[in-house]
């Protein structure tokens, strides 16, 4: 267990470094002068030179890379002041510390993710299990049909419809907005309600289908039949024997979805005009803001790697045949 954690965490650090290096050098293959971009249209060569120096662009690429990487570990000093670790550099565009921007935006993303996750796990797995339990019945066919239709929906399609129904036309709810949880839990909840509902609808449909199909697959397993042949009650067989086997694929997908959502739910954020990590990433990318883009990417990669390790730990917990090594 400890060996596993040490091995995997050190592996994660190496991968983070490689991702950083790869993005950094890939970005520099773009034939653009970042100082020029940063300066705007009417820019004198002197200004460019100053900016270049401020941003550190006058140094060789390898030095720039080294400074960037050491900054993450031990912080860096910029003309604006000290940027404490983990320092992801200064945005070319706004001149803010990238880490501060991320810290600023992350609560919105976290709220979206956690709330959505609770809803779609509850409803998705619930209806999926129900459909598997009642497989072959009208209810199952209804659930399967509905989840098929809903899972092919898109947030940018469903979002505006819900907004115009519940907000613009009827005024039943306010427009979605991001209120910090600690300021007012009630407002936080009301502000997030519509984005959660819309996002969760589509995920719910996907989880329903997945839970149903893996459960039906598990119910065909021979060991499930053995449990029935022992006289165990159907409900017990369903929730102990079949459900345990379904957990592996479900946990895999949750891990993937969670890391995707934590590194920014771009479409949801744009649809409901929420300023989260996803928007930050798109903004950085559009303005070719290297430090910002790299910062957000590394931030996302961090979640992917951590959740990967968490999912592997979950496998070992679920299935005794999995050994952590």
């Amino acid at each position: 267990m400890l060996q596993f954690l040490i091995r995997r965490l050190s592996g994660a650090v190496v991968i983070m470094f490689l991702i950083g290096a790869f993005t950094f050098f890939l970005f520099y293959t773009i034939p653009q002068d970042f100082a020029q971009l940063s300066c705007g249209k009417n820019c004198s060569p002197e200004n460019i030179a100053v900016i270049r120096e401020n941003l550190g662009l006058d140094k060789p690429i390898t030095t720039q890379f080294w400074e960037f990487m050491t900054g993450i570990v031990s912080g860096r000093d910029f003309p604006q002041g000290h940027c404490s670790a983990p320092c992801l550099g200064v945005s070319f565009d706004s001149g803010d510390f990238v880490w501060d921007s991320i810290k600023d935006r992350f609560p919105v993303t976290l709220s979206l993710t956690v709330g959505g996750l609770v809803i779609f796990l509850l409803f998705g797995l619930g209806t999926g299990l129900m459909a598997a339990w009642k497989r072959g019945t009208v209810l199952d066919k209804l659930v399967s049909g509905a989840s098929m239709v809903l899972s092919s929906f898109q947030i940018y399609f469903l979002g505006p419809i819900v907004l115009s129904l519940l907000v613009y036309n009827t005024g039943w709810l306010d427009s979605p907005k991001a209120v910090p949880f600690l300021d007012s839990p009630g407002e936080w909840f009301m502000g997030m309600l519509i984005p959660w509902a819309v996002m969760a609808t589509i995920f719910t449909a996907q989880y329903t289908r997945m839970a149903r199909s893996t459960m039906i697959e598990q119910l065909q397993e021979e060991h499930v039949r053995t449990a029935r042949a022992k006289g165990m009650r159907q409900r017990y067989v369903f929730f102990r024997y079949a459900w345990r086997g379904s957990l592996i694929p479900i946990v895999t997908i949750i891990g993937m979805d969670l890391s995707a959502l934590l590194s920014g739910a771009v479409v949801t954020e744009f649809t409901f005009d929420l300023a989260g990590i996803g928007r930050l990433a798109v903004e950085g990318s559009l303005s070719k803001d290297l430090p910002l883009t790299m910062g957000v990417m590394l931030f996302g990669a961090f979640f992917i790697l951590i959740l990967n390790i968490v999912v592997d730990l979950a496998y070992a917990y679920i299935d005794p045949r999995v050994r952590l090594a």
Partner: protein
Amino acid sequence: MSDKLTLPKPQGPVDGAAETLLSVEGLTKHFPIYGGFPIKRKVGAVQAVDGVDLSVGVGESVGLVGESGCGKSTTGRLITRLLEPTAGKITYAGQDISHASRRQLAPVRSEIQMIFQDPYSSLNPRQTVGTIIKSPMEVNGINPKGGIEKRVRELLELVGLNPEHYNRFPHEFSGGQRQRIGVARALSLNPKLIVADEPVSALDVSIQAQVVNLLQKVQEEMGIAFLFIAHDLAIVRHFSQRLAVMYLGKVVEVGDRDSIYNRPRHPYTHALLSAVPEVTLDDETEDRERIRLSGDVPSPIHPPSGCRFRTRCWKAQDKCATTEPPLVQISGNSANHLTACHFPEDPTTEARAEDIVLDPALAALEKEGE
């Protein structure tokens, strides 16, 4: 016949034995196991095959029997060079092919063919039967008289399939018919040796005999040598003139059919034969010895020292743990009947005064019942 023969014409039996087509000396295959911390390294090996000596004569049928994990399938795959041996020497028609490269192997590959156990997964479901059978000829650039297609139809007929089914797909055939397709494919290159790995064990009882008879016809009429790998001792006995018994990666006894089935010397061979459930047809009472081993075969990762069978053997003594018994002709054995045992059994399978029951649960229950 193919014109790319690498084999000298058989010159008739020498000293009563057929000329050797394939011989294997000290054949060894260890599959490494990796692990350790912090850097993964080789920490052990599955000793699947460990120093196997074996030979197959021209046109001879040799059986290879043993239980799961004894290395019989791995041996087959090493001989067909689907696996690279860790050590040892494989000589085919006088040529060392143990580590031959792809290019060097090419002419030999067409002469050694393989038939697999599972007729469902060993045929490409997207290819027609015709394509499956002709592709080995095309790959090897063989152009038989009358064209490839005519040859394929001949082969289909030979294995008892309708030549009209040339354009059908494998899923349109039953299990037994698919195994026939596998045989036709193996025959397409006029092989000298066919390694058949459990060729009938996936088939229904009534179909097994069809395929066994087909293989026997192929072996006898076309003079093809067979290495017949199977766990079913009755089928191997029916098919093979000579056979080798394997246990945990080693050959423990080898000899002709009569020696192995009627005059076995190795305790494991005795146990194996005694375990086969036989239909008794006449009113005679059971007159075969009864031996019940205990437990399962040990792990090939940490095989027992000395004789590998000693942990389950009723005759084992201290010597068995320290000295590995060589595979030799022991006194009382006929020539070519070799046994690897320090304390061999009497050469008979008749019932003993007292059954050998090593299984503790069985022994307890039987004592209770008395």
